[in-house]
Structure formats: C-alpha cells, structure tokens
C-alpha cells in the first residue's frame, strides 16, 4: 500500500510539471496582456516598456517560465500578482478558506441527502417515491447553477428580503457564525441541488445492481432482517463505485466555484480566478492553475486510497503488486 502511494506521488510530479507548461503557453497565446489592464492607454510607450521590463514580460517565454519554475522549486514562491502586486501565495491562501467552507459543506450535505434517497429509490424501484426522487434528481442536474442562483436571489433576497443576496458578511460589520450561516444558505442550496441530483442517480443505479447479487440472498437465507440486508450487506458494496464518483465530485465543485462565487459575491478562489483572467494577471493565474491541478491529482490519489479501504479485493492487489 505504501509503495503504491509513493508510486502515485512520483507519477504526479511530471503531471504537475506538464500542466504548468501547457497553462503557461496557452495563457501567453490569449490576446491582451497585463500592461493594458494595468496602466492607462494614454501612457507613453517608454513608460509602458519600463513596466513590461519590470514585470519581466520582455524576456523570451521560456525564460519567463524558467524563472517562474526556479522560484517555485527553490523557494516555494509563486511570485507577486502583476495586478495588485501582492504575493500570490498569500492571495490564494486568503481565498482558500471561504471556498473550502462553501464546497465542503455542499459536498457533505449533498451526499447526506443523496445516499439515503438513492437507497430508498433503489429498494422501492418503480414506486411513486422512486419516481419523485428520480424526477427531483433530474431537475437538480438540469437547472444551471447560475439560473437557480439568480432565482433564489430574486425570491429570497430581493422580494422577501429574508436572506442576504451575497458576500460572506455585512459590509463593515465584523460578522460571526450566525451571519456566515445566513450568507451561506442560498449558495449552498444551489450547490446541494446539483450534488444531490447527480449522486441520487449514481447511488440508485449502483444499489440496484447490488440488490440482484447472490450474497444478498445468502444474507436473507440466514434470517437477516431486510433493513440489515440493505444497510449492512448491500450498502457496503454499493458505496464502492460511489467513492470514485465522490473523487470526481471534488474537481467539479472547484470548477463550479467560479460561477457560484461570482453570483453570490463569495470571496473565494473562484472569484479570484475570474478576476485574474479579466486582468491577465499571469502570475496569479499560474498559481491558481497549480492549485487546481494539485486538487485534481490529490482527489484522485485520495479516491484510490479510500477505494482500497472499502474494497478488500483492491487492497490485496495494492499489497501484492498487480495481479
């Protein structure tokens, strides 16, 4: 197992390296540059040139990448934002917390809803309950995040004035757990509708497949109550494929953050990403991309580890090498 994880981590290094190179090249191919965003168009060319030299934009592209990489590897430094001049690391760290709070809560809540509903849907296949859950999950998947978000803002913030329309706390106020909670409700509803919608269907189909298995008949033949047959014997097996899906869910949520955080003015990674793109803030974008790639790879490795934890057959193959 340990050897396996080590192997995966070693493979992750060239992957991260490749991702940064591709991102760097694509970014430079996009039209526009940080100078245009930063300074007035009326500025004389000489001044613009001075700024470009200061930011290192006149060096050959491979030199720029090399400098960036050297800085990262030698000092763990991601450089300074070309727009705000703040250190990129601290900008990202500052934005990370709010995103993690929002996404983590959405993921946990979404699964807490999806797993029991999916099980119920599968055990009562083709019943009214099943149809309601399946239709509900379909709606959850089909309604775009921004649309549901805007509707919720219109109804609950603008019309009813029950909940804040965005942000993490009131302007100028200190905040606190209560206000944070109030601000979280709307974005969480949007995200949970999506996460639960997707996963109810996964859990249901995974469970349906397991419910036909021979070993459940064995469990019933022992005299086990149906509740235990489903929740002890079937669920353990049905969760195995779900683990993979949760692993994929993490990067999806990270990507979805861009839209949600924009709609609800949530000061997280997603919002930072969008504004950095707008400002052609190359150095911040490189940092964000690195973080995104890292999240995807980490989620994958984590999935494999959890996989081994829930499925003894996989555990065996890790220990004994490929077999």
């Amino acid at each position: 197992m340990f050897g396996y994880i080590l192997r995966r981590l070693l493979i992750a290094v060239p992957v991260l390296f490749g991702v940064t190179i591709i991102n760097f090249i694509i970014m430079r191919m996009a039209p526009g540059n940080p100078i245009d965003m930063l300074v007035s168009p009326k500025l004389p060319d000489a001044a613009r040139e001075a700024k470009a030299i200061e930011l290192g934009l006149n060096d050959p592209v491979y030199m720029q990448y090399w400098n960036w990489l050297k800085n990262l590897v030698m000092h763990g430094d991601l450089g300074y934002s070309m727009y705000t001049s703040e250190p990129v690391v601290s900008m990202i760290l500052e934005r990370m917390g709010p995103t993690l709070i929002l996404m983590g809560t959405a993921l946990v809540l979404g699964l807490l809803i999806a797993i029991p509903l999916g099980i119920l849907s599968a055990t009562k296949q083709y019943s009214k309950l099943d149809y309601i859950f399946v239709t509900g999950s379909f709606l959850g998947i089909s309604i775009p995040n921004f649309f549901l978000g805007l509707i919720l803002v219109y109804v609950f913030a603008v019309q009813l004035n029950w909940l804040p329309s965005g942000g993490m706390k009131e302007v100028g106020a200190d905040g606190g757990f209560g206000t944070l909670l109030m601000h979280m409700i709307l974005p969480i509803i949007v995200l949970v509708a999506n996460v639960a919608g997707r996963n109810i269907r996964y859990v249901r189909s995974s469970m349906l497949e397991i419910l036909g298995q021979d070993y459940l008949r064995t469990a019933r033949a022992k005299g086990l109550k149906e509740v235990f047959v489903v929740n002890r014997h079937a669920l353990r097996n049905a969760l195995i494929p779900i683990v993979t899906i949760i692993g994929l869910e993490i990067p999806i949520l990270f990507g979805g953050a861009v839209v949600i955080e924009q709609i609800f003015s949530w000061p997280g990674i997603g919002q930072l990403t969008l504004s950095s793109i707008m400002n052609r803030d190359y150095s911040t974008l490189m940092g964000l991309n690195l973080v995104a790639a890292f999240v995807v790879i980490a989620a994958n490795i984590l999935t494999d580890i959890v996989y081994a934890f829930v499925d003894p057959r996989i555990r065996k193959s890790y220990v004994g090498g490929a077999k």
Partner: protein
Amino acid sequence: MSQQTKTPLLTVKNVKTYYPVKTGFMNLQKSYVRAVDDVSFEIYEGETLGLVGESGCGKSTLGRTIIGLEPLTDGTILFDGKPMNFRTDRVSLSKQIQIVFQDPYSSLNPRLTIGDLLAEPLTVHKIVPHHEIQQEVSRLLALVGLSDSAKSRYPHEFSGGQRQRIGIARALALRPRLIICDEPVSALDVSIQAQIMNLFKKLQRELGLTYLFIAHGLGAVKYISDRIAVMFAGKIVEMGTTEEIFKNPQHEYTKKLLGAYPIPDPKKRSILTKP
C-alpha cells in the same frame, strides 16, 4: 484406432504457454504463470482425442494456443506435417481448424440472423459461388439438425442446445478438418448434452472430422473419445486409449479423478463408501 503409419493431422510438440506477471515495487519483477507447460501429443485424421482436467489445469489455454488465440511461448505445432504460423497463414489455417466454444451465445452476433451469420464466413472465404450461398446455408442447417426456418431468426430466439448447433454449423461452414471443441456441452442440460454429443459423432462419421474434445465431464469425454489425455497443472500426466484410461489408470491423479466421479447408479456408491 492405429494409424501410426500415417502423418498425424496435428502434432503438438513441447508446447508452452506462459503469462508474465508483474510483481514487486514499481512492477519491476517479472514472474510467469505456466498455463501450459511442455505438452506434446498427436492427433490422427478421423479420431477424437479427449482432453480432461479440472478448472485451471490449462486445457482450454492449450486449445486456444493451438488455434492461435493465445501466444505460443515455446514449442512447435504441426498441422498435416507442416509448421503452423498464425501470423502468416491465418486465412488458410482457419479453413482447416475451427473451434466450438462452451457458450455459443456470446460468440454469435445478436443483431444478425442465423442466415446472415452462416453466410458471412462463406462469403469472406469464398467457399461457394455467390448464388449458391443460400443453398449452402440450408445444407449446413440440415447437417446440424435445424430446420430452414432458422435462417430468418436471431440467436436469442434459440435454446441453449439449438445455439450450440448453430455454433457447430458455423464452425463447419469453412469445411475444416480439425475441430477444437472447448467444453461444448458443459453448459447444457443432461438430455440436450446427449443430443449434441450424438451430433458430434454423426458429423464425424459423415464428414471424417477430427476432434480435440476438451471437457471436465468424464462421462462426455469417455463417450466421444478414442484416446484421452489427462491434464494437471499445465502438464499431460497420462495419455492412452479411452479403455486404458478408464479401466487401468496409471497416474495417481487420473485415479483420483476417476474415483471422484459420481456413478449414476445407487448400487455402486463409491464416494461415500470409499475413504
């Protein structure tokens, strides 16, 4: 059947089929699973060699190696005295050797009618002129005991026994000389097994076919084989005429195998009486 003077139709000489298994840190070490380990035998034209053994002994792998479906690690296989090479002679060899599988259903394309399924090899290999194809399909169906109405039906409309007949008809389409039968009756009901085995015997009489009959059921192998090879852990441990093997087994494993076979006669109970 003593045909020792003639050239054997199939000669298998020191055949080995190994599969590499990667183990150790970073999958760097290699070891091998010896599925077929130094096997030699000959089959003469018109005879049936039964190949028996329990699951995992390598009997199916051996059959698949002969027909080129598994890699030949070492050794030689001669067909009609000439070395076989599936890389260069696949087309001509497939006209000589065919295989019938345990479950014909998975090897029959579900979206083709039986007529199309049987016409396909005839067209590809130009066995008969184009205008005679329908006639040839009818002949094949009649040969395996199916009516002409089968032509327009799909594989799922047939029972297990009928599907096996279709599988045999397809193998016969290219007019092969050797048929490798890989557990062809194991999945069938007892009464249907008898039908199919009688069909194999009839076809052998009428067409002069040669069989390598791979099975784990001793009754079937005894009924159909002239000679029997007993396989255990990748090797042939004993080979002889059917009568020799059943009446006077020499190898310990053969004795064990025969002793474990439940005889369908309550007066001859052996498993519960013998230790």
